[in-house]
């Protein structure tokens, strides 16, 4: 939360640039698991693991798990970018309150 030495303008620019880059990476992964993998369903189906042809498995479970991991990874990563640029929200004490 320090670093007032830099001009706010340039610091904001770097922060927004990193945010855009992260968004592009996450959307790229989203396109891979949402679309590209399923375009390869026929070759993937030749591999069978525990009864699941791999192409079928990716559509029924694999991509879904990838999406969840992707969103949690994204939110942790974006939070770090925000904190390093000093634009994150302060951690409110009440956030720990509800269990």
């Amino acid at each position, binding site marked *: 939360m320090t670093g007032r030495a830099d001009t706010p303008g340039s610091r904001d620019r770097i922060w927004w640039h990193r945010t855009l880059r992260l968004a592009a990476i996450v959307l790229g992964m989203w396109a891979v698991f949402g679309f590209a993998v*399923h375009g390869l369903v026929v070759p993937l189906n030749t591999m069978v693991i525990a009864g699941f042809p791999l192409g079928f498995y990716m559509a029924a479970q694999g991509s879904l798990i990838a999406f969840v991991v992707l969103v949690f990874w994204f939110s942790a990563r974006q939070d770090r970018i925000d904190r390093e640029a000093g634009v994150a929200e302060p951690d409110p004490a009440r956030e720990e309150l509800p269990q």
Partner: protein
Amino acid sequence: MSLPQRDDAFLANLGRIYGTYVGGFIAFVATLAILEQMGVPDRIIGYLFVFFTLAVYAGIGIVTRTVQVSEYYVAGRRVPAVYNGMATAADWLSGASFVGMAGTLYALGYDGLAYVIGWTGGYVLVAVLVAPYLRKFGAYTVPDFLAARFGGNLARLVGVLVLFACSFTYVVAQIYATGIIASRFLGISFEVAVYVGLAGILLCSMLGGMRAVTWTQVAQYIVLIVAYMLPVAILSAQKFGFPLAQVTYGAVLQEIAVLEQDLLARGLATAETLKPHLAPFTSLDPLNFFALIACLMVGTASLPHILMRYFTTLSVRDARRSVGWSLLFILLLYVTAPAYAAFAKLEIYQNVIGAGLEALPQWIYTYGKLGLVDICGAHAASPDAVQAACAAVPGNDGVLRLPDLAIDRDVIVIAMPEIAGLPYVIAGLVAAGGLAASLSTADGLLLAIANAMSHDVYYRTLDTRAPASRRLVMARVLLLGVAVLAAYVASTRPADILSVVAWAFSLAAAGNFPAIVLGIWWKRCTSAGAIAGMVAGFGVTLYYLAMTQYGGMAEWFGGKNISAALFGLPVGFAVTILVSLATPAPSREVQALIDDIRKPSGGPLMRDGPL
């Protein structure tokens, strides 16, 4: 103003409240199981299930009542990420997802997984592109954001129109589903059951708005997910000695593939009538498969009743994290649905197809009587009816063949307890789960519609100086009005409305997505551009839907109308961008507003009065 101690007590004790609730629910199911063993009739078990769960939801709705505007519209913005995730999952998982998804996968095999992918992947878009920014802005409704970003009430009213178009048919379908379930398990007529469902919905939402709906949705999520996972877990445990059906159904898939070959070899199915369960692109060609995924994903990120759930979190950080939790809770149902489909298909290929017409399992007749299972083109109401119908079919020699059997998609989940030979209490549990799924979605949708009308149309457009108390009265009157109207429409069994529910995704995607996303991510996007883009995208989609459904228009490039946003979405983006570039850049104030929306720090931009 409104009993702050009670507010704090509820929020401070969330863990204990919902822990007790889960324990109580398990004890309740166990008690009913014992009552059933003691000989209490099925009908009474059904009554107890429906009334006790409704009473719990109503109780939560009453305890969490509020007279504060921000509590009513956004639950005071202090719902923890995990609980908001559960509430969003309940909001999202509709009655149709609960009872129909597995049946769709049963019928379509691999191709049905487009729904599973589309209805989960959209949350990545929500997390990255939309939710944190709308949370930072601090709107009460989605049109509220459109009005602030695109200067004025025209954008607001177009937003309300899109919201209404994609939410109203959806809520009618939910109330219809509650009516179907309530009438089946209470033995009352459908028209009356619809109003029982309506009472359940209003008890949850009238007094406490978003705050009450949030906390009932958490309770409803717990019921629906337990009800969904339990029957298939028992089935998996019976067959493999291991309850995780999501893992064991791989072996079932292999058995299905063997049985499919067997059915072909025995002449019980032909290559035209049998769609191999694992083979891709048998029902949807690749264009439609991927177009459907894209439309469902973008639609998810544009549905107002989902987006407004992320207005309720403590912080922007929590809004992002909450999307992850939502997706995790939603995923639990969607990874279970293909297992349901596989277990049902195995049962049917093994014990139904190829069986003598006089030796079909009992559940065929149970659901045949309800008109949900047809054999040889007639309702399979009794062994005699089946044999009479099949005698008239050429080529049938007393054995059931695959093309002779037609099963309604809802049967797969509803009949599973019976197919597996489980006690009636499990069937009652599944009904309670289906009811929870439709009630929670109906609540979220009704609130989205009524809030848009009371906040955007009444307060922001018609009477900007209305005091808080009058705004809350208006909000409740409008909620009641919309709910009664929706229940009335549902009670007329509108076949047209039910068939167009899937349109909501395409309409929301084409109408909202370009304006919301470009409004956040592109400073040069102007009011004229956004409004023109919304009208054009929404208009093209609606035109395509209506003309292909009713106007007899040929499909463009073979795109099915369920993925109509395939055309509307690019048009919406193109018009927004071109008109924006042709009009002067947004003012300095609007550009500063966008800068503020992007930064998590600094608190919400939109502030309401002290109340």
